[in-house]
């Protein structure tokens, strides 16, 4: 599979579901919108599948979709212990970009970016992908130099990135404060115009609907309690709704990766941390791009509902609680208000947390294990949402062919033994 | 007790708040400013690593008893001994006497497993006094600073608006706050801002 032209499988819904379109909206209005077909079935688990994906978040659903659409594996199931997209997929701040430092990172995130560009057509579902740009601010001489190095590396990989000075930034983002006397002044920034946001829930629903259309069973409220093996081979998964026989299991459970890995005696270098986010009351449009700042630890955008969407760094202790401590958002908002004084009177409306699986090198794990038929896609930490299509696409390839492709290969679990780490703390930047 | 207006013009070297001018914002509710603060310029500060057995030596040289419990300090005139850890405390003395005191302590060590380090210039010290001093500090400090919980003789290493500090309660309305010299300007600005609603005066 060529890196530049990913095989996206068939476009639209070949399985026969009615397509979404303006015509469909008009037609359904005649029957008061009571006749729309369910987007996916509430499938009963079969006794056996060709592959089982554990985890019904964006990455898991994308994996299942590409297994069916690209590799023709339709006798598969996605098993989700809660409701689909209810984990980190529903809790992130929706930022999408591919401006990472190392070649290996450029490969996977840009692969994902190219899939984003066309995803709504592939899935016949509007994921609201908005390429409004992602601008990362530099606040010191050091950051300016570091930024320059990064921009060169990014462009050498054929990915768009440009440097802006304070005046240009002010033109691009009228509400930003470029006063040079503040504690962390805006000294410059680098912009990826093709970056932006998407509607996180829509991504999960779009993949679920398209996968279901191809025959994939999506089984919610079903918790995996064990991984049954015969020797060093997977033979099936134990679940709260019974045993399911299968020879291939893909684990895509993010913050719970260590829990599932332990079911097979597999060790991971992952630490599960809280990552918090919050939204403000909705206001008229004041920000039409995404701003990230490593120094002041914050990233911000404005949703289509008008809410300011804000996030910061992880809480620095392990947790599965889906909540963190107050000083993190407090610290972040102080910085946000200094950069965007117009936010100072805004009320914050909702605040929540997720469980992010962080890796020692801030890069993911997409890997076989030493148990035949058991595969892991995890360790995305705070940067998983942007990789949703790319991760699903290469993980499906790994599961279908039992070997990683060129893009996935560097992310093997073995790299922690070989020392070939891919250190992206700088690019993951603020959130790690 | 440290005096409120300590002039050290005879000592060389800039102080941490060099360049800051006397500032005054009147109490909006009339009356005295809720907070009056100044720098204790060149206040002598020594870090000591030694265990309780050093108590007698400390008393004979500095005049201060060894701090009896965690988070407390003892005093003898303008000198204080502040508990910082199970085997660590800070000796505070009048400006200009730090080197002499450090030498005496060093000389008395003998074979003792101990260390004394002169950190007079590494840290800056503020003297704070006024009816609103506890409310002002509480704006940036998570400790319970009510006068019934943090009384005279109590000390703590903690955070004051993100800056690492050692605070000491001298009386109900009187504190010493010590921070890294590089944070002194920041804390000065923060104190002025935090105390604005009570009326504040910074004395040079």
């Amino acid at each position: 599979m060529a890196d530049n032209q990913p095989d996206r499988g068939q476009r639209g819904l070949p399985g026969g579901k009615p397509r979404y379109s303006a015509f469909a909206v008009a037609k359904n209005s005649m029957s008061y919108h009571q006749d729309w077909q369910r987007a996916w079935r509430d499938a009963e688990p079969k006794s056996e599948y060709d592959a089982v994906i554990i985890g019904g978040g964006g990455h898991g659903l994308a994996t299942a979709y590409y297994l069916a659409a690209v590799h023709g594996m339709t006798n598969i199931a996605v098993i989700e212990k809660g409701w689909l997209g209810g984990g980190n997929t529903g809790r992130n701040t929706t930022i999408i970009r591919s401006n990472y430092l190392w070649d290996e990172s450029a490969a996977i995130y840009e692969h994902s970016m190219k899939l984003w560009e066309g995803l709504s057509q592939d899935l016949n579902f509007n994921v609201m992908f908005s390429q409004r740009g992602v601008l990362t601010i530099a606040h010191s001489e050091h950051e300016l130099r570091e930024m320059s190095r990064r921009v060169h590396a990014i462009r050498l990989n054929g990915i768009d990135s440009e440097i802006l000075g304070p005046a240009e930034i002010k033109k691009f983002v009228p509400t930003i404060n470029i006063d040079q006397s503040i504690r962390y002044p805006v000294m410059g920034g680098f912009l990826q115009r093709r970056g932006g946001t998407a509607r996180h829930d829509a991504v999960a629903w779009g993949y679920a609907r398209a996968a279901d259309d191809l025959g994939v069973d999506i089984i919610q409220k079903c918790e995996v309690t064990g991984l049954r093996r015969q020797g060093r081979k997977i033979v099936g998964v134990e679940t709260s709704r019974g045993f399911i026989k299968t020879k291939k299991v893909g684990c895509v459970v993010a913050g719970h990766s260590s829990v599932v890995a332990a079911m097979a005696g597999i060790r991971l270098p992952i630490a599960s941390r809280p990552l918090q986010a919050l939204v403000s009351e909705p206001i008229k449009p004041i920000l039409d791009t995404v701003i990230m700042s490593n120094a002041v630890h914050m990233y911000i955008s404005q949703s289509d509902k008008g809410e300011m969407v804000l996030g910061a760094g992880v809480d620095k202790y392990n947790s599965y609680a889906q909540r963190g401590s107050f000083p993190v958002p407090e610290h972040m908002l102080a910085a946000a208000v200094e950069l965007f004084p117009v936010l100072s009177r805004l009320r914050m409306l909702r605040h929540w947390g997720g469980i992010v699986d962080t890796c020692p090198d801030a890069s993911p794990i997409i890997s076989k294990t030493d148990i035949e038929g058991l595969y892991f896609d995890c360790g995305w930490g705070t940067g998983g949402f942007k990789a949703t299509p790319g991760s699903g696409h290469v993980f499906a390839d790994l599961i279908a062919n039992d070997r990683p492709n060129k893009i996935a290969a560097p992310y093997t679990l073995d790299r922690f033994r070989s020392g070939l780490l891919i250190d992206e703390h700088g690019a993951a930047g603020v959130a790690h | 007790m440290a005096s409120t207006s300590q002039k050290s013009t005879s000592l060389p070297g800039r102080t941490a708040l060099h360049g800051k001018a006397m500032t005054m914002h009147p109490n909006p509710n009339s009356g005295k400013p809720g907070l009056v603060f100044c720098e204790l310029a060149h206040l002598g500060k020594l870090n000591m690593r030694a265990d309780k057995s050093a108590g007698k030596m400390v008393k004979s040289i500095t005049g201060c008893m060894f701090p009896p419990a965690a988070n407390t300090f003892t005093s003898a005139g303008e000198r204080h001994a502040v508990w910082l850890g199970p085997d660590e405390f800070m000796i505070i003395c009048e400006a200009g006497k730090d080197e002499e005191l450090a030498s005496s302590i060093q000389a008395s060590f003998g074979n003792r497993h101990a260390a004394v380090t002169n950190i007079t210039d590494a840290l800056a010290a503020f003297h704070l006094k006024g009816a609103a001093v506890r409310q002002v500090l509480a704006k940036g400090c998570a400790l319970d600073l009510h006068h019934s919980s943090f009384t005279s003789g109590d000390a703590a290493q903690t955070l004051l608006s993100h800056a690492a500090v050692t605070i000491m309660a001298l009386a109900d309305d009187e504190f010493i706050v010590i921070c890294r010299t590089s944070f002194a300007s920041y804390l000065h600005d923060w104190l002025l801002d935090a105390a604005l609603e009570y009326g504040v005066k910074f004395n040079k």
Partner: protein
Amino acid sequence: MMLIDCPFCGPRDETEFSCGGEAHIARPLAENKISEAEFADYLFMRDNPKGLFLERWRHSAGCRRWFNMARDTVSHEIVEIYPMGALPKTAAAKSAYSASWRRDTAAEHAAKPARTTVKNAGKARGAK
């Protein structure tokens, strides 16, 4: 938000502390006696339990001393705080310590032979 009882300073706000990650990782003193894979396990593999976790913490804005903590990663309840260099005393924490895969690793054996006489050293390790 956690209130952490520093063994030296008493109860203080979580913001005064930094978390040092998994506790009781013995550094293998004889590094050339274990394989590279085993050394990589020591360096990178980490316990990440959903439940009781034994961690190291430092009172970074206070006395700066280190101590150990047994904390539940779901409820954030602090079950026990015990000195650096010591082992926990509560039943749940002791059991978390003994049951950890790390007790049986080559790195731990290479660190301090005496450690492996903990009573569960011979316990079979398998899927949990």
